[in-house]
């Protein structure tokens, strides 16, 4: 089930890496840049929201912190250390949100992510001396020459890293623990999983990738404002793309971004102002008819076609070991 997803992912990345060789249209590359940017953000979100089932509607926080980290720190330290600092700051944000809300069950984590992002947005808006306030702040360009192609490759590279990381997570004990937490947290606890800590690690990884994406995005556009970086729309888009593609699947975030970013770009050109309406209808249709997302639904259908019909096991428990039990003399401790 996982192998075909890796293959499809590899093909998508290969095609993406070859595109600039044949096509050097900046508009076109920027559209695909955005597509992969949100794919990497979706893959990051998927670690927390997909595998671990912890709905985050505040990933713009890490995205924005990564961007503002680069923008505000690069004058004093050079851009690369500033990116690292942004990543660290985003992880500290994740630590704050996670260590408080992951001990609780229910909607608290989701609410905390929304609230925290709002707080960051308001801070960015209201500290004009530091962040430039609503006017915004300039960001240094990471690739002064060959701008669009370099950004394009950097973004595809980041997505490949995020994809590889997700692949590793899926096959590791850490991934099993995340899925166990999604399915039933009590069960995870009962087999010795420190669920709060496992969730926190997932969020830290997720925040780091999101911050890198934020820095890339900011650096391409050279100027950022609070509403654009910390806006609710960004958080929602980061969550919705992987959900539609298939939350908790390796390929889901990539497919979701591919389908919806392409669709929204096409709609923008055809329907002009009405494109958001069409986009909304599309989202509603997918949620109604493909609740497990595109990849999730395909995975179920395909495995159902491939495998033999399940054996009726429940009514016929195998008798083997039960019969054997007669031979066993039990060590019976004599208790008073």
């Amino acid at each position, binding site marked *: 089930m996982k192998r075909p997803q890796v293959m499809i992912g590899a093909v998508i990345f290969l095609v993406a890496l070859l595109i600039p060789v044949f096509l050097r249209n900046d508009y076109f590359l920027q559209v695909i840049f955005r597509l992969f940017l949100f794919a990497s953000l979706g893959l990051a979100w998927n670690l927390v929201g997909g595998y671990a089932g912890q709905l985050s509607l505040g990933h713009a926080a890490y995205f924005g912190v990564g961007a503002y980290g680069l923008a505000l720190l690069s004058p004093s330290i050079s851009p690369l250390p500033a990116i690292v600092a942004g990543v660290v700051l985003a992880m500290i944000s994740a630590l704050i949100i996670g260590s408080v809300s992951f001990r609780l069950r229910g909607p608290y984590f989701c609410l905390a992510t929304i609230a925290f992002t709002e707080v960051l947005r308001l801070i960015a808006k209201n500290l004009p001396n530091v962040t430039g306030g609503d006017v915004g702040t300039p960001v240094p360009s990471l690739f002064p020459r060959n701008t669009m192609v370099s950004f394009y490759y950097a973004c595809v590279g980041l997505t490949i890293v995020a994809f590889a990381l997700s692949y590793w997570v899926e096959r590791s*004990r850490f991934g*099993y623990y995340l899925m166990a937490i999604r*399915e039933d947290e009590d*069960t995870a606890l*009962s087999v*010795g*999983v420190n669920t709060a800590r496992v969730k926190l690690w997932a969020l830290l990884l997720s925040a780091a990738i999101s911050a890198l994406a934020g820095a890339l995005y900011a650096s391409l556009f050279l100027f950022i404002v609070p509403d654009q970086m910390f806006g609710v729309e960004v958080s929602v888009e980061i969550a919705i793309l992987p959900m539609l593609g298939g939350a908790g699947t390796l390929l889901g975030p990539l497919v979701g971004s591919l389908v919806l970013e392409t669709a929204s770009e096409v709609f923008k050109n055809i329907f002009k102002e009405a494109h958001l309406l069409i986009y909304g209808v599309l989202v509603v249709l997918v949620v109604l008819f493909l609740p497990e997302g595109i990849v999730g639904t395909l995975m179920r259908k395909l495995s159902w076609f491939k495998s033999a019909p399940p054996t009726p096991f429940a009514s016929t428990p195998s008798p083997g*070991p039960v019969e054997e039990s007669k031979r066993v003399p039990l060590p019976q401790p004599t208790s008073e």
Partner: protein
Amino acid sequence: MALLEIKNVSKRFGGLKAVSDVSMSIETGEIAFIVGPNGAGKTTLFNLITGVHQADAGQILFDGHDITRLSPDRAAKLGIGRTFQIVKPLRNLTVLENTMLGAFLHTSSPAVAEREAAKVLQFLGMTKAMHLPARGMGLPMMKRLEIARALATKPKLILLDEVVAGLPTSEALKLADLLKRLPEWGIAAIGGVEHVMQVVMKIADLVVVLDHGVKIAEGKPQDVVHRPEVIEAYLGPKYKELLKK
């Protein structure tokens, strides 16, 4: 020294005394059953042992550690496995993956976890169902899966909360045969049972009877079931009078 020692443990939820002043102990390789009518405090006692709830008073010792205030994951790491009365499988994962989750307590390698899980599943006669998803399985399989997941953690003590409840008698007795073999693995077990007494009589070394959170009897199964206070708890005072005659 006893493997698990519960000393005068109490727990109340608001005005309800769920468990009051209960003491018991169990040795390695022993199978004990906590018996009592619905609401007697069996599940609460299990939740106190595994750290899901914190005791208001008393002390719980396990294998030389004071576990009274331990969190559930720490209790599991010390070697206490448990099953849930209301089964809690990971529905979208397969039977094997569910069991591997337990095995991951001692290894970080999925390959090793898979081997260990397969062994446990073979012991429980679930090899055929290994690659099926946990959702949509019948209750007998669900109950076995609960045991499989707990056994895969290689516990020293396993708590089986109503593990035979709702099963057909034949299946319950088959399961009892399997549970009887737990001491082979060096595992002690405490079962909680409301009324499937055939299983208790068959495999218990020790029976503790709870009623409204109070321990009313303790001893060998054959003795305990004839005690008047036990009969009163289950059938009412009328039957206690009948017994005296």
